Every structure is written in structure tokens, then in C-alpha cells.
């Protein structure tokens, strides 16, 4: 009898602590939720704004999105988000979020901003696992290499030019690291191809707001 009582009291105590602990977490979650969401939106907005200057569009970029699927050209079998920038209702540019699946280690997630006429406005690496000091030059925090895409389009240079220099193209590779830049160049080129094939569709589809910003965390 005593033993059972002891067990019950102990179990109850453990339960009380579980409730208290969870309660504390729930309370904090409730109080920080809004701020965290706001942070993520701001962060996304800032990243997107480095690609398309805020003066060039007047819609809410992170809400005007669609998701598309193209494993072949966008590198992911999961749906990929496209942000659409418009001014006075007219399409200005789209930001694709392709994945370069053939990096040196793991996927390289990209943002590729393409002006309505097919010209690249900017490219950024959102997350990657490339070797620090070698392949990580693709990251804007380490080098300006990623800016070398600006102004290029599908036929500028031609198909043979859309490679790293080592493979006969026009884009630099880094000393000791060809694989990472090669993967990025290929992914950017494929994004342009996708854009060319689907441009009207990209701007024509109705808005599909994202529940969570898929490119939030780095």
C-alpha cells in the first residue's frame, strides 16, 4: 500500500514538473512567436531586396509567390518557390530559388533574380556546405564572385560560355575549387532556361502564399 502510494506521488510529481516545464516553454513561445515571424520576414525581405532594389517594385514580394516543380532544371524534387516583383501590376522580375545538387558537399541553395526580359539581376547563395576557404567563395560573405552573373542572360554568353573558365566558359573558378563554382554556374544557367520556357506562366499564375519562408534560415 505504502509502495503504491509512493509510486503515485512520484508519478504525480513528475507530471507536475512536465506540465510546469511545458507551460514555461508554451508561454515563451506565445510571447516571442510574433517577433520571430517578423524577424524571418524582415530577413527574407532584406535578402530579396539586395537582388531587386525596393524602388523597382511595389508589391509585397514575400507574399506574391508561386511554387513550381522541375527536378531537371531547378535541381530539387520538392516544389520550389518563385517570388514575383511587380510595379503597377506589371511584371518586373522573378526570384527563383533553385538548388544546385552537385556541389562538393551537399546541396547549394540559391536565389536567382531574373529581370522580366531574361537578364540576371543578381544571384545569392542562401545555404551551402562547401569547404571553408576553398569552395565557399561562392558566398557573398567571402567573395564577390557571385556578382559575376549580373547582366548575363541565356544567350549572353552562348551555351558554351555558360561554364567555368576551366571548361571553356567565361566564369572564373577559384584556385583549388572548381566543383562549387561549376555547380552554381550550371544551376543559374538551368534557372534561366526554366524562366525562358515558363515566363508567362510564372507571372500569370495566381498567388500561392507560403506558410513558411522556405529560404529563411541559412
Amino acid at each position, binding site marked *: 500500500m505504502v509502495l503504491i502510494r509512493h509510486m503515485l506521488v512520484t508519478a504525480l510529481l513528475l507530471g507536475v514538473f512536465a506540465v510546469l516545464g511545458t507551460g*514555461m516553454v508554451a508561454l515563451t513561445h506565445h510571447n516571442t512567436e510574433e517577433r*520571430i515571424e517578423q*524577424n524571418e520576414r524582415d530577413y527574407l525581405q532584406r535578402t530579396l531586396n539586395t537582388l531587386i532594389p525596393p524602388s523597382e517594385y511595389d508589391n509585397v514580394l514575400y507574399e506574391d509567390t508561386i511554387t513550381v516543380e522541375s527536378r531537371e532544371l531547378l535541381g530539387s524534387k520538392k516544389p520550389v518557390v518563385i517570388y514575383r516583383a511587380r510595379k503597377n501590376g506589371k511584371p518586373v522580375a522573378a526570384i527563383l530559388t533553385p538548388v544546385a545538387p552537385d556541389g562538393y558537399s551537399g546541396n547549394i541553395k540559391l536565389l536567382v533574380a531574373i529581370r522580366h526580359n531574361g537578364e540576371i539581376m543578381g544571384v545569392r547563395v542562401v545555404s551551402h556546405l562547401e*569547404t*571553408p*576557404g576553398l569552395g565557399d567563395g561562392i558566398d557573398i560573405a567571402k567573395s564577390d564572385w557571385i556578382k559575376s552573373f549580373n547582366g548575363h542572360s541565356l544567350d549572353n554568353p552562348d551555351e558554351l560560355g555558360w561554364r567555368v573558365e576551366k571548361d571553356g566558359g567565361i566564369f572564373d573558378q577559384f584556385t583549388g575549387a572548381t566543383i562549387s563554382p561549376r555547380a552554381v554556374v550550371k544551376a543559374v544557367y538551368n534557372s534561366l532556361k526554366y524562366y525562358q520556357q515558363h515566363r508567362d506562366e510564372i507571372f500569370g499564375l495566381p498567388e500561392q502564399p507560403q506558410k513558411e519562408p522556405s529560404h529563411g*534560415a541559412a
Partner: protein
Amino acid sequence: MAQHDYSEITRQGLWKNNPALVQILGLCPLLAVTSTVVNGLALGLATLLTLILSNVTVSLIRHYVSPEIRIPVFVLVIASIVTVIELAMHAYFHELYLILGIFIPLIVTNCSIIARAEAYASKNPVGPAFVDGLMMGIGFAAVLIVLGGMREVLGQGTLFANAHLLLGEMARGFEVIVIEDYRGFLLAILPPGAFIGLGLLIALKNVIDSRQEKRLQTAPAVSTEATAGTA
């Protein structure tokens, strides 16, 4: 032993029983995060806060928790505290959270926290438990910061890079370029650099300890310094 000798607790936490150098606990975040001073400092502060809060909480509830369930209760307490810290960090230090993100939840698995709860806080009143958490936390954070500094200088030739992520905009100018036009030393940034760096720190501590011991033995006057080969 005086009932609660605070200076002894301090010595234990900072040096004699340092969680990182002597107990060798909590290595996973320690090795993963210490690529810069700021990263080390941030994780160090988060761990320090966790240690203090968990020690105080465990000490407060020590009379109510029966021995059978103490470990699950300690784990619950620690996990709740860490989750709250993680959420707060996500809300107030978002950019830093993006860098340290996955290592904050890992503080839960830092054995030094549950070790302090079990070995000290559950047997002592709140005051000493608080000081113990504080000192152990500072001892741990100090190693994170020193290791971060070593790796940052060697690896990328700077110090205090990204300080603004932790300390606000005014800290943007804190970055010191120690070596101009430094090409970087890859090994220091990669995980092996963390192991080697920590090994060197432990060796250094042992050298200092053994010298001190010798000095005590051979009386104050004569000091034949041992040429101890580090590394």
C-alpha cells in the same frame, strides 16, 4: 571544509575542475562553434545562463524530487530552460541565431549541465548552487572564447568579426584585422583545428599546474624550470 566555501567553488569552476579543460564535457558545441570569438562568446553566454538557471532551479526543488525521478526531472528542467533561451534568442538576436541556430538546442546535451545539477545543485542550497553554476559557466565560456580567438586569428586573421550580431550596431567597428591580407589557414577553421586547439589548451593548463606543483614542493627559492614540451 567550511560549509560553503565560495572561493573554493570559484577555483573549481574556473580552473581546477573546469568543465571544458578538466571534465572534458560539452565538447560537441564547444568544438563546432568556436570558429570565432563572437560565436564562442555567444554560445558561452547561452550555456552560462542555462547553467545558472538550471542549478538554481534544481537546488530549489531538491527537497521535493524523490531520487527515482530526479534525472528525468533535471532533464525536463534543463530542456525547458534551453528551449526558452533558444526562443528568446531567435526573437532578439536573429542573425546570431542563424549562425548558432542548431547548436543552441544542443546545449541540452551538454553533459556538464546535468553533471552540475546532479553532482552539486541537487545537494546544496540555492546560494552555492548559483555560484557554482556561474563559475562553471564562466570557466566553460572562457575556454570557448579563448579557443574561438585562437582559431579566428589563425584561420582568418581577424578578431571580433561580426561582433555587431551579438552586441548591436555600435560594435560593428570592433573587428580587428590582426594580419593584413591574410590568406587564411584552413585547418584552424575546420573541425580538426578545434581538436588541436583544445588539445593545446589542455596541455598548457597541465604545464602550468605541474610547474606550480613543483614550485610548492621545491620551496620558494630554487626554481629549476622544467622545459616542458607543449604540443
